[in-house]
Protein backbone atom coordinates (compact mmCIF):
# COMPACT_ATOMS: atom_id res chain seq x y z
CA UNK A 1 0.00 0.00 0.00
CA UNK A 2 2.79 2.40 0.92
CA UNK A 3 4.41 1.88 -2.47
CA UNK A 4 1.11 2.39 -4.28
CA UNK A 5 0.49 5.58 -2.32
CA UNK A 6 4.03 6.78 -3.03
CA UNK A 7 3.53 6.05 -6.72
CA UNK A 8 0.35 8.14 -6.64
CA UNK A 9 2.10 11.03 -4.91
CA UNK A 10 4.77 10.92 -7.62
CA UNK A 11 2.04 10.91 -10.28
CA UNK A 12 0.57 14.02 -8.72
CA UNK A 13 3.94 15.71 -8.35
CA UNK A 14 5.34 14.95 -11.77
CA UNK A 15 1.98 15.47 -13.46
CA UNK A 16 2.14 19.20 -12.66
CA UNK A 17 3.84 21.54 -15.10
CA UNK A 18 5.35 23.71 -12.36
CA UNK A 19 7.37 20.73 -11.11
CA UNK A 20 9.45 21.04 -14.28
CA UNK A 21 10.21 24.75 -13.94
CA UNK A 22 13.42 23.92 -12.06
CA UNK A 23 14.59 21.46 -14.70
CA UNK A 24 13.86 23.96 -17.45
CA UNK A 25 15.64 26.76 -15.62
CA UNK A 26 18.74 24.60 -15.15
CA UNK A 27 18.88 23.86 -18.86
CA UNK A 28 18.59 27.55 -19.77
CA UNK A 29 21.07 28.81 -17.18
CA UNK A 30 23.60 26.10 -17.95
CA UNK A 31 23.47 26.87 -21.65
CA UNK A 32 24.02 30.57 -20.96
CA UNK A 33 26.88 29.92 -18.54
CA UNK A 34 28.52 27.52 -20.91
CA UNK A 35 28.50 30.07 -23.70
CA UNK A 36 29.80 32.69 -21.31
CA UNK A 37 32.63 30.41 -20.20
CA UNK A 38 33.56 29.63 -23.76
CA UNK A 39 33.32 33.08 -25.28
CA UNK A 40 34.26 35.52 -22.48
CA UNK A 41 37.41 36.08 -20.43
CA UNK A 42 36.19 33.57 -17.91
CA UNK A 43 38.05 30.72 -19.64
CA UNK A 44 41.29 32.68 -20.04
CA UNK A 45 41.14 33.58 -16.33
CA UNK A 46 41.06 29.88 -15.53
CA UNK A 47 43.88 29.14 -17.93
CA UNK A 48 46.03 31.87 -16.33
CA UNK A 49 45.36 30.46 -12.88
CA UNK A 50 46.44 26.98 -13.97
CA UNK A 51 49.55 28.09 -15.82
CA UNK A 52 50.45 30.39 -12.92
CA UNK A 53 50.55 27.29 -10.71
CA UNK A 54 52.67 25.37 -13.19
CA UNK A 55 50.03 23.27 -14.89
CA UNK A 56 49.17 22.96 -18.53
CA UNK A 57 45.80 24.65 -19.00
CA UNK A 58 44.92 22.50 -22.01
CA UNK A 59 45.04 19.37 -19.81
CA UNK A 60 42.44 20.66 -17.36
CA UNK A 61 40.00 22.91 -19.21
CA UNK A 62 37.60 20.03 -19.61
CA UNK A 63 33.93 19.02 -19.45
CA UNK A 64 34.31 18.05 -15.77
CA UNK A 65 36.00 21.35 -14.82
CA UNK A 66 33.34 23.43 -16.57
CA UNK A 67 30.52 21.32 -15.13
CA UNK A 68 31.73 22.07 -11.58
CA UNK A 69 32.13 25.77 -12.39
CA UNK A 70 28.54 25.88 -13.59
CA UNK A 71 27.24 24.28 -10.41
CA UNK A 72 28.06 27.12 -8.01
CA UNK A 73 25.55 29.80 -8.95
CA UNK A 74 22.86 27.24 -9.58
CA UNK A 75 23.05 25.56 -6.20
CA UNK A 76 23.22 28.90 -4.39
CA UNK A 77 20.46 30.68 -6.31
CA UNK A 78 18.30 28.36 -8.37
CA UNK A 79 18.20 25.13 -6.40
CA UNK A 80 16.79 26.65 -3.18
CA UNK A 81 14.18 28.50 -5.20
CA UNK A 82 12.86 25.51 -7.13
CA UNK A 83 13.15 23.01 -4.31
CA UNK A 84 11.27 25.24 -1.86
CA UNK A 85 8.70 26.03 -4.53
CA UNK A 86 7.82 22.36 -4.81
CA UNK A 87 8.25 21.69 -1.07
CA UNK A 88 5.97 24.60 -0.19
CA UNK A 89 3.31 23.21 -2.53
CA UNK A 90 3.30 19.65 -1.25
CA UNK A 91 0.66 20.06 1.47
CA UNK A 92 -0.46 23.70 1.29
CA UNK A 93 -1.48 23.52 -2.38
CA UNK A 94 -3.66 20.49 -1.72
CA UNK A 95 -5.26 22.28 1.22
CA UNK A 96 -5.84 25.36 -0.93
CA UNK A 97 -7.31 23.37 -3.84
CA UNK A 98 -9.56 21.29 -1.59
CA UNK A 99 -8.11 17.93 -2.59
CA UNK A 100 -6.70 17.48 0.92
CA UNK A 101 -10.24 17.35 2.26
CA UNK A 102 -11.09 14.67 -0.31
CA UNK A 103 -8.07 12.61 0.78
CA UNK A 104 -8.78 13.04 4.46
CA UNK A 105 -12.30 11.72 4.10
CA UNK A 106 -10.57 8.38 3.56
CA UNK A 107 -9.16 6.09 6.24
CA UNK A 108 -5.54 7.15 5.86
CA UNK A 109 -3.77 8.57 8.90
CA UNK A 110 -2.50 12.11 8.63
CA UNK A 111 1.05 11.13 9.60
CA UNK A 112 1.16 8.41 6.96
CA UNK A 113 -0.16 10.80 4.32
CA UNK A 114 2.48 13.33 5.25
CA UNK A 115 5.20 10.69 5.27
CA UNK A 116 4.29 9.57 1.75
CA UNK A 117 4.25 13.18 0.55
CA UNK A 118 7.63 13.83 2.16
CA UNK A 119 9.10 10.73 0.50
CA UNK A 120 7.79 11.94 -2.87
CA UNK A 121 9.39 15.33 -2.16
CA UNK A 122 12.69 13.68 -1.31
CA UNK A 123 12.61 11.76 -4.59
CA UNK A 124 11.91 15.01 -6.46
CA UNK A 125 14.84 16.78 -4.75
CA UNK A 126 17.20 13.90 -5.54
CA UNK A 127 16.03 13.72 -9.17
CA UNK A 128 16.47 17.49 -9.54
CA UNK A 129 20.08 17.32 -8.32
CA UNK A 130 20.77 14.31 -10.50
CA UNK A 131 19.38 16.16 -13.50
CA UNK A 132 21.45 19.20 -12.58
CA UNK A 133 24.65 17.15 -12.54
CA UNK A 134 23.92 15.11 -15.66
CA UNK A 135 22.74 18.07 -17.74
CA UNK A 136 25.78 20.13 -16.70
CA UNK A 137 28.11 17.33 -17.69
CA UNK A 138 26.40 16.60 -21.01
CA UNK A 139 26.25 20.28 -21.98
CA UNK A 140 29.87 20.86 -20.97
CA UNK A 141 30.98 17.80 -22.94
CA UNK A 142 29.46 19.28 -26.11
CA UNK A 143 31.95 22.15 -26.03
CA UNK A 144 34.89 20.79 -23.98
CA UNK A 145 37.02 17.63 -24.13
CA UNK A 146 36.97 14.76 -21.64
CA UNK A 147 40.18 15.42 -19.69
CA UNK A 148 41.40 15.98 -16.15
CA UNK A 149 39.37 17.96 -13.64
CA UNK A 150 40.41 21.22 -12.07
CA UNK A 151 38.50 22.50 -9.07
CA UNK A 152 39.09 25.82 -7.44
CA UNK A 153 36.90 27.49 -4.91
CA UNK A 154 36.62 28.92 -1.50
CA UNK A 155 34.03 28.40 1.18
CA UNK A 156 34.02 30.41 4.37
CA UNK A 157 36.27 27.97 6.18
CA UNK A 158 38.13 26.10 3.48
CA UNK A 159 39.74 26.81 0.18
CA UNK A 160 40.16 24.10 -2.42
CA UNK A 161 42.60 23.79 -5.27
CA UNK A 162 42.40 20.33 -6.74
CA UNK A 163 43.56 18.59 -9.86
CA UNK A 164 42.29 15.11 -10.66
CA UNK A 165 42.52 12.63 -13.51
CA UNK A 166 39.23 12.33 -15.43
CA UNK A 167 38.09 9.05 -13.84
CA UNK A 168 38.77 10.15 -10.27
CA UNK A 169 37.19 13.50 -11.07
CA UNK A 170 34.01 11.79 -12.25
CA UNK A 171 33.74 9.77 -9.04
CA UNK A 172 34.21 12.92 -6.93
CA UNK A 173 31.69 14.76 -9.08
CA UNK A 174 29.17 11.99 -8.36
CA UNK A 175 29.98 12.15 -4.61
CA UNK A 176 29.53 15.92 -4.63
CA UNK A 177 26.05 15.42 -6.10
CA UNK A 178 25.20 12.91 -3.41
CA UNK A 179 25.84 15.57 -0.77
CA UNK A 180 24.15 18.22 -2.87
CA UNK A 181 21.08 15.99 -2.94
CA UNK A 182 21.18 16.01 0.86
CA UNK A 183 21.22 19.83 0.74
CA UNK A 184 18.20 19.82 -1.58
CA UNK A 185 16.37 17.34 0.65
CA UNK A 186 17.01 19.57 3.67
CA UNK A 187 15.70 22.64 1.83
CA UNK A 188 12.66 20.67 0.74
CA UNK A 189 12.03 19.41 4.29
CA UNK A 190 12.07 22.96 5.65
CA UNK A 191 9.59 24.12 2.98
CA UNK A 192 7.52 21.00 3.58
CA UNK A 193 7.37 21.79 7.30
CA UNK A 194 5.98 25.27 6.61
CA UNK A 195 3.62 23.78 4.02
CA UNK A 196 2.08 21.60 6.73
CA UNK A 197 1.04 24.70 8.66
CA UNK A 198 -2.24 26.40 7.84
CA UNK A 199 -0.87 28.77 5.19
CA UNK A 200 -0.80 29.46 1.48
CA UNK A 201 1.76 27.59 -0.67
CA UNK A 202 3.53 30.83 -1.61
CA UNK A 203 3.85 31.76 2.06
CA UNK A 204 5.43 28.37 2.83
CA UNK A 205 7.94 28.84 0.00
CA UNK A 206 8.78 32.40 1.05
CA UNK A 207 9.21 31.39 4.68
CA UNK A 208 11.53 28.53 3.73
CA UNK A 209 13.58 30.78 1.46
CA UNK A 210 13.74 33.41 4.19
CA UNK A 211 14.92 30.80 6.67
CA UNK A 212 17.72 29.76 4.30
CA UNK A 213 18.60 33.36 3.51
CA UNK A 214 18.80 34.34 7.19
CA UNK A 215 21.02 31.31 7.82
CA UNK A 216 23.30 32.29 4.97
CA UNK A 217 23.59 35.91 6.09
CA UNK A 218 24.13 35.15 9.75
CA UNK A 219 26.71 32.51 8.91
CA UNK A 220 28.74 35.26 7.24
CA UNK A 221 28.44 37.79 10.05
CA UNK A 222 31.82 37.85 11.89
CA UNK A 223 30.04 38.03 15.24
CA UNK A 224 28.61 34.52 14.65
CA UNK A 225 31.91 33.01 13.51
CA UNK A 226 32.08 30.74 16.54
CA UNK A 227 28.47 29.63 16.04
CA UNK A 228 28.84 28.65 12.39
CA UNK A 229 27.82 25.07 13.14
CA UNK A 230 24.37 26.29 14.09
CA UNK A 231 23.59 27.49 10.57
CA UNK A 232 22.47 24.89 8.07
CA UNK A 233 23.95 26.77 5.11
CA UNK A 234 27.39 26.16 6.64
CA UNK A 235 26.71 22.42 6.38
CA UNK A 236 25.50 22.80 2.81
CA UNK A 237 29.09 23.60 1.82
CA UNK A 238 30.34 20.11 2.47
CA UNK A 239 29.59 18.96 -1.09
CA UNK A 240 32.64 20.97 -2.12
CA UNK A 241 34.85 19.37 0.51
CA UNK A 242 34.99 16.11 -1.48
CA UNK A 243 37.39 17.88 -3.83
CA UNK A 244 39.92 18.49 -1.05
CA UNK A 245 42.96 16.31 -0.55
CA UNK A 246 42.66 14.43 1.73
CA UNK A 247 38.87 14.42 1.83
CA UNK A 248 37.76 15.56 5.32
CA UNK A 249 35.31 12.70 5.79
CA UNK A 250 34.83 13.40 9.51
CA UNK A 251 33.68 16.96 8.78
CA UNK A 252 31.46 15.75 5.95
CA UNK A 253 29.92 13.04 8.14
CA UNK A 254 29.27 15.57 10.87
CA UNK A 255 27.56 18.00 8.47
CA UNK A 256 25.49 15.27 6.82
CA UNK A 257 24.36 14.00 10.24
CA UNK A 258 23.27 17.51 11.19
CA UNK A 259 21.38 17.93 7.91
CA UNK A 260 19.71 14.57 8.43
CA UNK A 261 18.66 15.67 11.90
CA UNK A 262 17.29 18.95 10.48
CA UNK A 263 15.22 16.95 7.95
CA UNK A 264 13.85 14.66 10.65
CA UNK A 265 13.07 17.62 12.92
CA UNK A 266 11.31 19.47 10.11
CA UNK A 267 9.22 16.38 9.38
CA UNK A 268 8.33 15.84 13.05
CA UNK A 269 7.33 19.51 13.54
CA UNK A 270 5.38 19.53 10.27
CA UNK A 271 3.53 16.32 11.00
CA UNK A 272 2.74 17.37 14.57
CA UNK A 273 1.27 20.66 13.41
CA UNK A 274 -0.59 18.91 10.60
CA UNK A 275 -1.94 16.30 13.00
CA UNK A 276 -3.46 18.79 15.41
CA UNK A 277 -4.85 21.27 12.90
CA UNK A 278 -8.43 21.30 11.66
CA UNK A 279 -8.87 20.69 7.93
CA UNK A 280 -11.72 22.83 6.69
CA UNK A 281 -12.99 23.95 3.33
Amino acid sequence: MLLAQLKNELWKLFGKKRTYIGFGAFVVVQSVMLLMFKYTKWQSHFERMLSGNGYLATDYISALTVAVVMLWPQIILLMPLYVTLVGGDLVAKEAEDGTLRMILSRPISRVRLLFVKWLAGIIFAAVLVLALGVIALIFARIYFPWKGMFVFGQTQTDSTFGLFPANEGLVLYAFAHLFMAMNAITMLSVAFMFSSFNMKPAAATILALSFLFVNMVMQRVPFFEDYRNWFITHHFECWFLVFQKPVPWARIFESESILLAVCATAFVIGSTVFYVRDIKS
Partner: protein
Amino acid sequence: MIQLSGLKKKFSSRLAVDDLTLSVPRGEIFGLLGHNGAGKSTAIGMMLGQVWPTSGEVKICGHDVTSHRAQALKKVGAIFEAPAFYDYLSGWTNLEILSHYTAPTSRERIREVVEWVGLTGRERSKVKTYSHGMRARLALAQTLLPQPELLILDEPGSGLDPEGIAEMRQTILRLHRELGLTILLSSHLLTEVEQLCTRIAVLNQGRKVFEGQITEVKAARQRVALQTPDFAAATALLRERGLISGADGGRFISLANGNSTADVTRALVSAGIAVEGIWQHEQTLEDFYLDLVKPPPLPANKN
Protein backbone atom coordinates in the same frame (compact mmCIF):
# COMPACT_ATOMS: atom_id res chain seq x y z
CA MET B 1 -24.37 4.27 11.61
CA ILE B 2 -23.63 7.75 12.94
CA GLN B 3 -23.73 8.55 16.62
CA LEU B 4 -22.85 12.01 17.85
CA SER B 5 -23.09 12.77 21.54
CA GLY B 6 -22.54 16.09 23.23
CA LEU B 7 -20.38 17.27 20.34
CA LYS B 8 -18.91 20.71 20.69
CA LYS B 9 -16.45 22.65 18.54
CA LYS B 10 -15.00 26.02 19.36
CA PHE B 11 -12.81 28.01 16.94
CA SER B 12 -11.00 30.42 19.26
CA SER B 13 -13.93 32.35 20.76
CA ARG B 14 -16.58 31.28 18.23
CA LEU B 15 -18.75 28.31 19.10
CA ALA B 16 -19.37 26.54 15.77
CA VAL B 17 -21.16 23.46 17.09
CA ASP B 18 -22.71 23.33 20.51
CA ASP B 19 -23.77 20.16 22.31
CA LEU B 20 -24.84 18.27 19.20
CA THR B 21 -26.36 14.87 19.83
CA LEU B 22 -27.54 12.98 16.80
CA SER B 23 -28.21 9.46 15.70
CA VAL B 24 -28.53 8.21 12.12
CA PRO B 25 -29.64 4.58 11.88
CA ARG B 26 -28.63 2.24 9.05
CA GLY B 27 -30.59 2.56 5.81
CA GLU B 28 -31.87 6.07 6.36
CA ILE B 29 -31.54 9.21 4.24
CA PHE B 30 -30.95 11.78 6.90
CA GLY B 31 -30.99 15.51 6.23
CA LEU B 32 -28.84 17.98 8.09
CA LEU B 33 -30.45 21.31 7.52
CA GLY B 34 -29.25 24.78 8.32
CA HIS B 35 -28.31 28.10 6.81
CA ASN B 36 -24.73 28.90 5.79
CA GLY B 37 -22.58 29.00 8.90
CA ALA B 38 -25.02 26.98 11.01
CA GLY B 39 -22.34 24.39 11.75
CA LYS B 40 -23.23 21.65 9.23
CA SER B 41 -19.82 21.44 7.57
CA THR B 42 -18.02 21.59 10.91
CA ALA B 43 -20.20 18.73 12.16
CA ILE B 44 -19.40 16.73 9.01
CA GLY B 45 -15.71 17.60 9.41
CA MET B 46 -15.85 16.08 12.90
CA MET B 47 -17.60 12.97 11.56
CA LEU B 48 -14.76 12.48 9.05
CA GLY B 49 -11.98 13.20 11.53
CA GLN B 50 -10.95 16.37 9.71
CA VAL B 51 -11.95 18.68 12.53
CA TRP B 52 -11.08 17.83 16.12
CA PRO B 53 -14.03 18.15 18.50
CA THR B 54 -13.50 20.39 21.53
CA SER B 55 -15.57 17.89 23.50
CA GLY B 56 -18.05 15.10 22.89
CA GLU B 57 -17.92 11.86 20.98
CA VAL B 58 -18.32 10.89 17.30
CA LYS B 59 -18.94 7.27 16.38
CA ILE B 60 -19.20 6.05 12.81
CA CYS B 61 -20.10 2.42 12.17
CA GLY B 62 -19.56 1.81 15.89
CA HIS B 63 -15.98 3.15 15.96
CA ASP B 64 -14.82 6.31 17.64
CA VAL B 65 -13.57 8.63 14.89
CA THR B 66 -11.14 10.50 17.15
CA SER B 67 -9.29 7.42 18.36
CA HIS B 68 -9.98 4.83 15.58
CA ARG B 69 -10.35 6.96 12.48
CA ALA B 70 -9.15 4.32 10.01
CA GLN B 71 -11.62 1.73 11.29
CA ALA B 72 -14.45 4.23 11.45
CA LEU B 73 -14.00 5.50 7.88
CA LYS B 74 -13.37 2.16 6.19
CA LYS B 75 -16.89 2.00 4.78
CA VAL B 76 -17.58 5.71 4.41
CA GLY B 77 -17.68 7.82 1.28
CA ALA B 78 -17.95 11.59 1.21
CA ILE B 79 -18.70 14.28 -1.34
CA PHE B 80 -18.17 17.93 -0.63
CA GLU B 81 -19.56 21.10 -2.09
CA ALA B 82 -17.57 21.81 -5.29
CA PRO B 83 -15.57 18.55 -5.34
CA ALA B 84 -11.87 19.13 -5.97
CA PHE B 85 -9.69 16.93 -8.17
CA TYR B 86 -6.26 16.93 -9.75
CA ASP B 87 -7.43 18.73 -12.88
CA TYR B 88 -4.23 18.06 -14.80
CA LEU B 89 -4.74 14.30 -14.50
CA SER B 90 -7.37 12.09 -16.10
CA GLY B 91 -10.55 11.06 -14.32
CA TRP B 92 -9.26 7.49 -14.23
CA THR B 93 -5.95 8.48 -12.60
CA ASN B 94 -7.84 10.60 -10.09
CA LEU B 95 -9.93 7.55 -9.17
CA GLU B 96 -6.82 5.38 -8.86
CA ILE B 97 -5.10 7.94 -6.65
CA LEU B 98 -8.05 8.55 -4.34
CA SER B 99 -9.02 4.89 -4.01
CA HIS B 100 -5.51 3.93 -2.90
CA TYR B 101 -5.97 5.99 0.25
CA THR B 102 -8.55 3.42 1.33
CA ALA B 103 -7.44 0.08 -0.09
CA PRO B 104 -6.00 -1.36 -3.30
CA THR B 105 -8.72 -1.22 -5.95
CA SER B 106 -8.81 -3.36 -9.07
CA ARG B 107 -9.16 -1.88 -12.56
CA GLU B 108 -12.37 -3.90 -12.96
CA ARG B 109 -13.87 -2.21 -9.92
CA ILE B 110 -12.92 1.23 -11.25
CA ARG B 111 -14.41 0.34 -14.64
CA GLU B 112 -17.60 -0.90 -12.99
CA VAL B 113 -18.03 2.32 -10.98
CA VAL B 114 -17.20 4.54 -13.97
CA GLU B 115 -19.97 2.78 -15.84
CA TRP B 116 -22.38 3.07 -12.91
CA VAL B 117 -21.98 6.84 -12.75
CA GLY B 118 -22.13 7.20 -16.54
CA LEU B 119 -18.60 8.43 -17.26
CA THR B 120 -17.62 5.66 -19.67
CA GLY B 121 -15.77 7.08 -22.64
CA ARG B 122 -14.58 10.18 -20.81
CA GLU B 123 -12.63 8.54 -17.99
CA ARG B 124 -9.29 8.99 -19.79
CA SER B 125 -9.85 12.71 -20.45
CA LYS B 126 -8.23 15.27 -18.18
CA VAL B 127 -10.54 16.47 -15.42
CA LYS B 128 -10.01 20.09 -16.47
CA THR B 129 -12.09 19.30 -19.57
CA TYR B 130 -15.03 18.01 -17.49
CA SER B 131 -18.28 19.91 -17.08
CA HIS B 132 -19.66 20.62 -13.60
CA GLY B 133 -22.03 17.67 -13.88
CA MET B 134 -19.22 15.32 -14.93
CA ARG B 135 -17.15 16.44 -11.96
CA ALA B 136 -20.12 15.65 -9.72
CA ARG B 137 -20.28 12.17 -11.28
CA LEU B 138 -16.55 11.69 -10.79
CA ALA B 139 -16.97 12.73 -7.16
CA LEU B 140 -19.66 10.12 -6.81
CA ALA B 141 -17.45 7.50 -8.47
CA GLN B 142 -14.60 8.13 -6.04
CA THR B 143 -16.92 7.68 -3.06
CA LEU B 144 -18.34 4.43 -4.43
CA LEU B 145 -14.99 2.75 -5.13
CA PRO B 146 -14.40 1.40 -1.62
CA GLN B 147 -17.96 -0.03 -1.56
CA PRO B 148 -19.18 2.23 1.23
CA GLU B 149 -22.10 1.61 3.53
CA LEU B 150 -22.43 5.23 4.55
CA LEU B 151 -22.36 8.23 2.26
CA ILE B 152 -21.86 11.74 3.63
CA LEU B 153 -22.90 14.43 1.19
CA ASP B 154 -22.04 18.00 2.11
CA GLU B 155 -24.14 20.37 -0.02
CA PRO B 156 -24.02 18.07 -3.06
CA GLY B 157 -26.33 20.23 -5.18
CA SER B 158 -24.28 23.36 -4.70
CA GLY B 159 -23.22 24.97 -7.98
CA LEU B 160 -25.32 22.63 -10.15
CA ASP B 161 -27.95 23.89 -12.57
CA PRO B 162 -31.58 22.76 -12.06
CA GLU B 163 -31.04 19.82 -14.41
CA GLY B 164 -27.91 18.82 -12.50
CA ILE B 165 -29.74 19.09 -9.19
CA ALA B 166 -32.55 16.87 -10.46
CA GLU B 167 -29.99 14.34 -11.72
CA MET B 168 -28.17 14.41 -8.39
CA ARG B 169 -31.47 13.85 -6.58
CA GLN B 170 -32.27 10.83 -8.73
CA THR B 171 -28.77 9.46 -8.17
CA ILE B 172 -29.09 9.77 -4.41
CA LEU B 173 -32.40 7.91 -4.49
CA ARG B 174 -30.85 5.28 -6.75
CA LEU B 175 -27.91 4.83 -4.37
CA HIS B 176 -30.30 4.32 -1.52
CA ARG B 177 -32.57 1.97 -3.45
CA GLU B 178 -30.03 -0.10 -5.40
CA LEU B 179 -27.05 -0.15 -3.07
CA GLY B 180 -28.89 0.18 0.23
CA LEU B 181 -26.61 2.98 1.42
CA THR B 182 -27.21 5.04 4.51
CA ILE B 183 -26.99 8.69 3.45
CA LEU B 184 -26.36 11.81 5.45
CA LEU B 185 -27.19 14.84 3.36
CA SER B 186 -26.30 18.31 4.47
CA SER B 187 -28.03 21.11 2.65
CA HIS B 188 -29.58 24.50 2.90
CA LEU B 189 -31.87 23.70 -0.04
CA LEU B 190 -35.15 22.88 1.64
CA THR B 191 -36.81 21.29 -1.39
CA GLU B 192 -33.85 18.97 -1.82
CA VAL B 193 -34.11 17.78 1.79
CA GLU B 194 -37.89 17.56 1.64
CA GLN B 195 -37.83 15.36 -1.45
CA LEU B 196 -35.04 13.06 -0.35
CA CYS B 197 -34.90 12.66 3.38
CA THR B 198 -36.88 10.54 5.73
CA ARG B 199 -35.58 12.29 8.83
CA ILE B 200 -33.99 15.66 9.42
CA ALA B 201 -32.11 17.64 12.01
CA VAL B 202 -32.08 21.42 11.88
CA LEU B 203 -29.02 23.33 13.05
CA ASN B 204 -29.11 26.97 13.93
CA GLN B 205 -26.04 28.83 15.18
CA GLY B 206 -24.36 25.54 15.99
CA ARG B 207 -27.24 24.14 18.02
CA LYS B 208 -29.69 21.45 17.02
CA VAL B 209 -33.14 23.00 17.15
CA PHE B 210 -35.09 20.06 15.76
CA GLU B 211 -34.70 16.37 14.99
CA GLY B 212 -37.49 14.19 13.66
CA GLN B 213 -39.31 12.63 10.73
CA ILE B 214 -40.28 14.79 7.75
CA THR B 215 -43.88 13.60 8.29
CA GLU B 216 -43.62 14.90 11.85
CA VAL B 217 -42.64 18.28 10.47
CA LYS B 218 -45.70 18.41 8.31
CA ALA B 219 -47.96 17.31 11.12
CA ALA B 220 -46.20 19.35 13.78
CA ARG B 221 -48.50 22.23 13.56
CA GLN B 222 -51.62 21.86 11.45
CA ARG B 223 -52.61 25.40 10.68
CA VAL B 224 -55.76 26.71 9.12
CA ALA B 225 -55.73 29.57 6.66
CA LEU B 226 -58.57 32.00 7.30
CA GLN B 227 -59.53 34.68 4.82
CA THR B 228 -61.74 37.35 6.35
CA PRO B 229 -62.07 41.17 6.00
CA ASP B 230 -61.21 41.67 9.72
CA PHE B 231 -58.69 39.03 10.82
CA ALA B 232 -58.02 40.73 14.20
CA ALA B 233 -61.70 40.85 15.20
CA ALA B 234 -62.22 37.28 14.01
CA THR B 235 -59.31 35.88 16.02
CA ALA B 236 -60.35 37.87 19.12
CA LEU B 237 -63.80 36.31 18.92
CA LEU B 238 -62.48 32.80 18.29
CA ARG B 239 -60.06 33.11 21.22
CA GLU B 240 -62.85 34.32 23.47
CA ARG B 241 -64.89 31.25 22.57
CA GLY B 242 -61.88 28.95 23.01
CA LEU B 243 -61.99 27.67 19.45
CA ILE B 244 -58.35 28.49 18.57
CA SER B 245 -55.07 28.16 20.41
CA GLY B 246 -53.21 30.76 18.39
CA ALA B 247 -53.07 33.04 15.36
CA ASP B 248 -50.16 34.30 13.27
CA GLY B 249 -49.17 36.06 10.12
CA GLY B 250 -52.54 37.82 9.80
CA ARG B 251 -53.75 34.75 7.94
CA PHE B 252 -53.30 31.57 9.96
CA ILE B 253 -55.06 30.16 13.02
CA SER B 254 -54.29 27.04 15.05
CA LEU B 255 -57.37 25.16 16.10
CA ALA B 256 -57.85 24.34 19.76
CA ASN B 257 -58.18 20.62 20.50
CA GLY B 258 -61.42 19.05 19.39
CA ASN B 259 -62.53 21.91 17.13
CA SER B 260 -62.97 21.88 13.39
CA THR B 261 -63.06 24.47 10.60
CA ALA B 262 -66.85 24.03 10.56
CA ASP B 263 -67.03 25.19 14.22
CA VAL B 264 -64.92 28.24 13.39
CA THR B 265 -67.00 29.13 10.31
CA ARG B 266 -70.23 28.77 12.25
CA ALA B 267 -68.99 30.99 15.09
CA LEU B 268 -67.76 33.74 12.77
CA VAL B 269 -70.86 33.81 10.57
CA SER B 270 -73.19 33.87 13.56
CA ALA B 271 -71.23 36.85 14.92
CA GLY B 272 -71.62 38.64 11.57
CA ILE B 273 -68.01 38.32 10.45
CA ALA B 274 -67.77 37.34 6.83
CA VAL B 275 -65.71 34.27 5.96
CA GLU B 276 -64.25 34.57 2.46
CA GLY B 277 -62.29 31.34 2.72
CA ILE B 278 -61.11 28.76 5.22
CA TRP B 279 -58.92 25.71 4.51
CA GLN B 280 -56.37 23.37 6.09
CA HIS B 281 -52.89 24.64 5.36
CA GLU B 282 -50.24 21.92 5.19
CA GLN B 283 -47.03 23.39 6.52
CA THR B 284 -44.04 23.13 4.18
CA LEU B 285 -40.57 22.42 5.39
CA GLU B 286 -39.73 25.99 4.51
CA ASP B 287 -42.40 27.38 6.87
CA PHE B 288 -41.26 25.02 9.57
CA TYR B 289 -37.60 25.86 9.09
CA LEU B 290 -38.14 29.59 9.05
CA ASP B 291 -40.15 29.32 12.27
CA LEU B 292 -37.32 27.39 13.90
CA VAL B 293 -34.53 29.75 12.95
CA LYS B 294 -36.56 32.95 13.43
CA PRO B 295 -34.70 35.21 15.86
CA PRO B 296 -36.59 35.79 19.12
CA PRO B 297 -38.54 39.07 19.21
CA LEU B 298 -36.70 42.04 20.66
CA PRO B 299 -37.73 42.92 24.21
CA ALA B 300 -40.21 45.80 24.32
CA ASN B 301 -38.72 49.21 25.02
CA LYS B 302 -39.90 50.21 28.51
CA ASN B 303 -39.23 53.91 28.07
